């Protein structure tokens, strides 16, 4: 058992078409549990598309066809008995622009819990605990413990983005998907968010899309390089940056195209 690889996400021959435009071409990848996996590649290569496959939000845009297999925790998420609501509960998403809800910090954090439980099943103490726990995990508790009633949308950007991450945690997600989570933040804030991601390793599987090579290097344990909808290389981050096995990877990392 212990020798068995422990994968959160496995895809096999995953292809995706927007109309007749093929955005993903036979992507097969296994993503390790509890690790941070970086997803890099030039603009338009399908990073966001791949990420959005993992919680099936691509389907919202009509005219999308997917073939192949995606398994989360060994369960094929295209099976008929998969509930999208349950799937999105365990596969959370963080966006490029922080998008806290226009409600209080407290309500932002417990939003998921409220959505997934009957009103009478939620005790005040239980909610309070969840808020403290989630905010501590994203290092916001000390800053915000006296401001739980202020609107999430009035916080600083850095705090907003952290709050967006905290919002996912009470639901105990297996996977957290992050699509360029720091591109709206300044250097200092970026550092802070990276630090918080390190704090989350082990407990959650994180997949992060980034255009910032230095960031990919700093935060990720493994890296996936994509080009034109195809997966080119997937290795440990240090190997990819020190010793890429494909010429294209090397070219991209060294900034020869972007």
């Amino acid at each position, binding site marked *: 058992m212990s020798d068995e690889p422990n994968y959160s996400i496995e895809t096999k021959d995953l292809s995706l078409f927007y109309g007749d435009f093929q955005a993903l071409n036979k992507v097969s990848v296994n993503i390790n549990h509890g690790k941070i996996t970086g997803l890099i590649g030039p603009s338009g290569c399908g990073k966001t598309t791949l990420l959005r496959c993992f919680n099936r939000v691509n389907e919202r845009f009509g005219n999308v066809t997917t073939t192949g297999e995606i398994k989360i925790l060994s369960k094929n998420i295209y099976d008929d008995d998969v509930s999208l609501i*349950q*799937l999105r509960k365990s596969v*959370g998403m963080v966006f490029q622009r922080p*998008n806290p809800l226009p409600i209080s910090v407290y309500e932002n954090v417990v939003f*998921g819990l409220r*959505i997934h439980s009957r009103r009478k099943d939620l005790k005040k103490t239980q909610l309070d605990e969840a808020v403290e726990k989630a905010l501590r995990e994203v290092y916001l508790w000390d800053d915000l413990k006296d401001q739980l009633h202020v609107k999430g*949308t009035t916080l600083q950007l850095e705090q907003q983005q952290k709050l967006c991450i905290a919002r996912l945690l009470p639901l105990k997600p297996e996977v957290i998907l992050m699509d360029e989570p720091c591109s709206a933040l300044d250097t200092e804030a970026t550092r802070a968010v990276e630090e918080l991601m390190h704090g989350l390793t082990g407990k959650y599987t994180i997949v992060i899309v980034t255009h910032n090579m230095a960031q990919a290097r700093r935060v990720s344990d493994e890296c996936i390089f994509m080009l034109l909808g195809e997966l080119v290389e997937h290795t440990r981050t240090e190997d990819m940056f020190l010793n890429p096995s494909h010429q294209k990877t090397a070219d991209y990392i060294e900034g020869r195209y972007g």
Partner: protein
Amino acid sequence: MFQETPYIRHKLRVEKSAKTVFLLMTVLIIIPLIMIVTYMVYKASPVLSMDFLLTKPTNGMRQGGIWPALLGTLYLVLMSLCIAAPVGVMAAIYLNEYAKDNWLTRTVNLAVINLAGVPSIVHALFGLGAFVIFAGIGRSILAAALTLAVMTLPVIITSTKESLSAVPMSFREACWNVGATKWQTIRGIVLPNSVSGMLTGFILEVSRAAGETAPIMFTGAVFYKAIAEGDVFAYGLLDQCMALSMHLFTISTQVPNVPEALPYGTAVVLLSTVLAVNAISIGLRVYIRSRKKW
């Protein structure tokens, strides 16, 4: 360095005259408006009093007050709002939040826009045929309110849809991505943040419903009806009623020798009723806006 050239001076002169012309036009519309209102109030002043509001017309409508008409208008407006608001808001929610972008949705949207432009006399005939005759309600407050509701539905739907789409998409995405259903998203986030826009729709509906004569003339309003003075429950749903717009029309054109102050008084009351409702809604909107930040 940095000196004015003749060309720059020319540009500045043009700039100044442009601004003056626009200001002039603005003043030009506001002044007549103020004059009209002042003139109306001045003409109406001999009759304006509490008695005028709370008593019924006497002496073949040449004396007395406007109570039955005032109350009738309130009934019609409030009832049409009670019918049109829920239906319109729910339809707008469906169209904006649920409907996929296909030909059916596009057709419905187009129909809504076009319905808003249908003349009220056409709605009047529709109301007469559909509610009074076909549904068998008869000429009554209910039939007239239904007709007004149908007439104002497009307005409510359009403005509600606008206020719903003003709520940023990223809020909805945030909700859907933690597994919220559409309805949970709408109830929890979208509706609370679009109330102010909906109020705009209600203002427009009230203003339009209160002012229309044709749709109610065919379906439930009468020239004269005696009701208990000062009793707000004097009308029943299936009664016919008087209404301010219709009363104004009657005493201005159908009854000879009406003292001038009476129609002006009626007009002032009609105008103030609409303005009062608008003021309340605008106040509410300002209050809601002041609490919303994103």
